């Protein structure tokens, strides 16, 4: 007899996600991914000055802060023919990289770890054993001291003793599937706290250039922050020295703390390399941070990440890289609360429509999935297929193209864990891929992007703004632009049309939309749904403590505000972008 299970709110994510499940004998039989927030930003940006729109769409998401702003200014620059100087592009690359590293670290420790780490058990641990556990897993993090572990254990004890469990209230601490030894739990909680301190420090890379975080400032045509070795009011050697330190902190934390922790945890929960597979199709336009203004097939790469080219892996064939073709992207609204003029069809982003047609119950409600429509999230498909985006897609693409460092880290991890490459398509695989990518991103930032920027600055390259296309009278009367950016959660594209100096059409296709969307007209499930209910084998031992599906959904790093975002409301055609 199937049992209905609702997880709402699904916590430790960005935004509002509801998962409805039918489970049977401890396994998930059916699942529905339901996004329960809509803001309608599409209508709001229409008619605005395109130079302002980055500030609006940046507010799509505060976890993915910066990424929508950079995608927006890149799309507008593509439309109006603006060419940000190389130093401005490098600054954006550094901001993107620091955001991505921070985002991955926050995701692993603060959003995902409690699926595997038992905080209550940490209070019982021997601090010396925690130090020893860290040593055994190869963690050389400076925080692995007896004093620190003792202090953290006492902190956890004090919280538990108080009877007021704060953010740990209602946690599944008696669930039998928490498997780490107590000393590992304690080490992980200590690193949870260390990671808070780390992210606060390293995010300052972006603050130097954008003035604040979250939601730093950006500029169509370049950057507003001036750089000049001989001006105190510009970014100079003082900030360069600071940034160098914060980047070094990043390499240290990711290398000595995050990666060993991730490897250790997925090693204990190794069966999760066989749980949570979604469709074996993967799409990316490069490594994390890759940014294109215009169609990647023809445009100039604007970022430093040139080693891996755009591509798509299909049907589980992880060796054959298909060329990326933006015309193969289409979005379905079959299970979403929108209506299309031509009915239940897939629309390419340049023809997207977003007419609200809510058919769900009036809140409060208890069950949504009896209706064919159950979400605010559309369902994008590539060449008709549901695809995965994000770290796992990028790591597999880099691997397929022979990116040496990625191959080395993946091969080492696979050998240690005894897994095959195709097992990265799994709950544990997505979590492992994120850690792998975080390390390569930190190394590229430290060894390539930042040194290039600093060297050029020393050489007198101080220009950060293309003034030639700032004035609206320098723009064509009608223009369209697109950008593709590989952001923390996956492939992001923004599409803009400008008429008479104002935005006439705006659309974004966002990583979580690719992943969290529901069923399409062919009945094909979205990746979240497939990962839970693809083979009827996903465990759910105790429906009142849905720890196992939380692990799987968290492995995607959901960002629901992003998923339902800036969509076209006008049904107006956006011209194909060819430049």
């Amino acid at each position: 007899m199937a049992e209905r299970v609702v997880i709402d709110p699904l916590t430790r994510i960005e935004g509002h996600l509801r998962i409805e499940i039918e489970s049977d004998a401890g396994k998930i039989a059916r699942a529905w991914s339901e996004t329960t927030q809509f803001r309608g930003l599409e209508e709001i940006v229409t008619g605005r000055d395109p130079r302002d729109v980055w500030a609006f769409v940046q507010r799509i998401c505060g976890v993915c802060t910066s990424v929508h702003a950079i995608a927006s200014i890149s799309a507008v620059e593509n439309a109006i023919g603006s060419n940000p100087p190389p130093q401005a592009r490098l600054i954006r690359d550094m901001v993107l990289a620091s955001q991505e590293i921070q985002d991955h670290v926050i995701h692993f420790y603060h959003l995902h770890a409690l699926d595997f780490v038992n905080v209550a058990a940490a209070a019982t641990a021997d601090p010396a054993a925690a130090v020893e556990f860290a040593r055994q897993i190869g963690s050389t993090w400076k925080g692995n001291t007896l004093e620190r572990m003792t202090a953290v254990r006492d902190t956890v004890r004090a919280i538990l003793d108080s009877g007021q469990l704060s953010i740990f209230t209602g946690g599944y601490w008696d669930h039998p599937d928490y498997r780490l030894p107590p000393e590992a739990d304690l080490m992980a909680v200590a690193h949870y706290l260390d990671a808070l301190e780390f992210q606060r420090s390293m995010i300052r890379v972006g603050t130097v250039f954008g003035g604040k975080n979250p939601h730093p400032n950006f500029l169509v045509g370049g950057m507003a922050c001036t750089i000049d070795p001989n001006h105190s009011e510009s970014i100079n050697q003082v900030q360069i020295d600071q940034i160098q330190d914060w980047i070094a902190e990043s390499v240290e934390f990711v290398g000595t703390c995050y990666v060993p922790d991730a490897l250790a945890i997925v090693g204990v929960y190794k069966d999760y390399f066989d749980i949570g597979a979604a469709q074996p199709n993967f799409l990316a336009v490069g490594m994390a941070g890759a940014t294109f203004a215009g169609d990647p097939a023809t445009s100039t790469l604007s970022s430093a990440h040139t080693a891996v080219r755009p591509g798509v892996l299909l049907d589980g064939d992880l060796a054959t890289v298909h060329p990326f073709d933006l015309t193969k992207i289409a979005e379905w609204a079959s299970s979403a609360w929108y209506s299309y003029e031509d009915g239940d069809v897939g629309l390419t982003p340049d023809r997207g429509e977003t007419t609200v047609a809510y058919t769900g119950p009036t809140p409060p409600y208890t069950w949504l999935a009896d209706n064919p429509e159950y979400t605010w999230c559309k369902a994008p498909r590539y060449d008709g297929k549901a695809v995965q985006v994000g770290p796992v897609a990028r790591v597999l693409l880099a691997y397929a193209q022979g990116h040496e460092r990625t191959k080395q880290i993946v091969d080492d991890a696979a050998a240690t864990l005894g897994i095959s490459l195709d097992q990265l398509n799994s709950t544990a695989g997505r979590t492992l891929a994120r850690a792998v990518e975080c390390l390569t991103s930190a190394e590229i930032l430290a060894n390539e992007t930042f040194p290039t920027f600093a060297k050029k600055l020393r050489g007198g390259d101080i220009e950060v703004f293309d003034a030639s296309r700032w004035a609206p009278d320098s723009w064509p009367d009608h223009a369209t632009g697109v950008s593709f950016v590989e952001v923390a959660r996956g492939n992001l594209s923004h599409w803009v049309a400008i008429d008479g100096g104002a935005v006439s059409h705006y659309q974004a296709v966002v990583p979580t939309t690719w992943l969290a969307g529901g069923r399409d007209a062919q009945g094909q499930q979205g990746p979240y749904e497939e990962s839970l209910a693809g083979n009827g084998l996903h465990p759910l031992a105790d429906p009142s403590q849905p720890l196992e599906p939380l692990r799987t959904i968290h492995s995607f790093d959901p960002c629901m505000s992003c998923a339902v975002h800036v969509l076209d409301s006008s049904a107006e055609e956006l011209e194909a972008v060819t430049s």
Partner: protein
Amino acid sequence: MPYHPDAWQAPTLGENLKRAGVTRREFLAFCGVLAGIFAGGAAGAPKASAEQIADKLAAVTKPNVVWLQLQECTGCMESTLRSGGTTVEEVVLKLLSVNYNELVMAASGDAANKALAATNAEPHILVVNGSIPLKDNGIYCTIGGESAEQVLRASAENATAILAVGACAVWGSVQASRPNPTGAVGVDEIIRDRPVINVAGCPPIGEVITATVAYLLAHDDVPQTDAEGRPLFAYDQRIHDSCPRRPHFDAGQYVRTFDDEAARNGWCLYEMGCKGPSTFSACPIFQWNLHTSWPIGAGHPCIGCTERHFFDRFTPFYRVLPNVRGFGVEGTAEKIGWGLVGATVAGVAIHAGATAVRHATARKTEAAEPLNAFGDDPAGTEE
């Protein structure tokens, strides 16, 4: 074998901190940070010493907190994570019991909803991020099957203090901008019978968010606010008045194009559309991210994100504000007086009103005119 609670014997925070190994010296250092923050912007407000704050904090038991996230982007929680010196989050973990917050809490689904219901049933502090979409029976944001309005009303009922944190909770922010498709409003549009403290900004500075919570505990009262409900300790100064670039404004030294020589010299961004003259915030005083920089400091004009309806009233962002005339040192006194505009006058009016106005309902009638912008009607007032 899970650890079983057995030893919370001391009734107060101070005793329990001591038991947990936090020394008086460490605690005072933390309170010193708070004292600095409170003193930073609070003109006329009594200044508390670290000692006084420590004594007050140490005497309280752990308050329970419900920290909602309604229709929003999670930027305010991210800003909260960025708050403070090195030991603040540890102390705050010990200071408060945040029993419900979707971003960080361990439990999901039923277990989370139970934690919420249990905390709602007792006195608690309510912090709200996000707006409330009222159109179409609240279908545009539901949590646990309930509309944002239903969630908010249930959590407000027994709240002893209500903080609306961030532009969405204060007035609706980007989704409430024209044409406000989901009918998004701020918390004080729903909760009208009690004061709502509006911690403005998109997002607010992390230190300001946590300091507002700490203020409640340290002072055992809500902070003094301006007519818009913003705590004076962080919103009593116009950016223009505390901006380190102000001398360049007064001297008529302006950036004319991004990345020009004037920009490299840190001259005034007024001509680039800076909204500092119409914006109340302590950004130049506290700065952002461990005092690293702030928007104008990094060369970009202020977009006025602590002001209501800034996405409508302050756009285009790069257009020069009307009614704030640039002038040089040679300008006449009359010109200078006029150059400082209504903004100064309006600012005085706001703060004069603030001391008397403690309730959101009263605020509606006593609020000063909106500060100078482009004369647009704010979204929602235009039918």
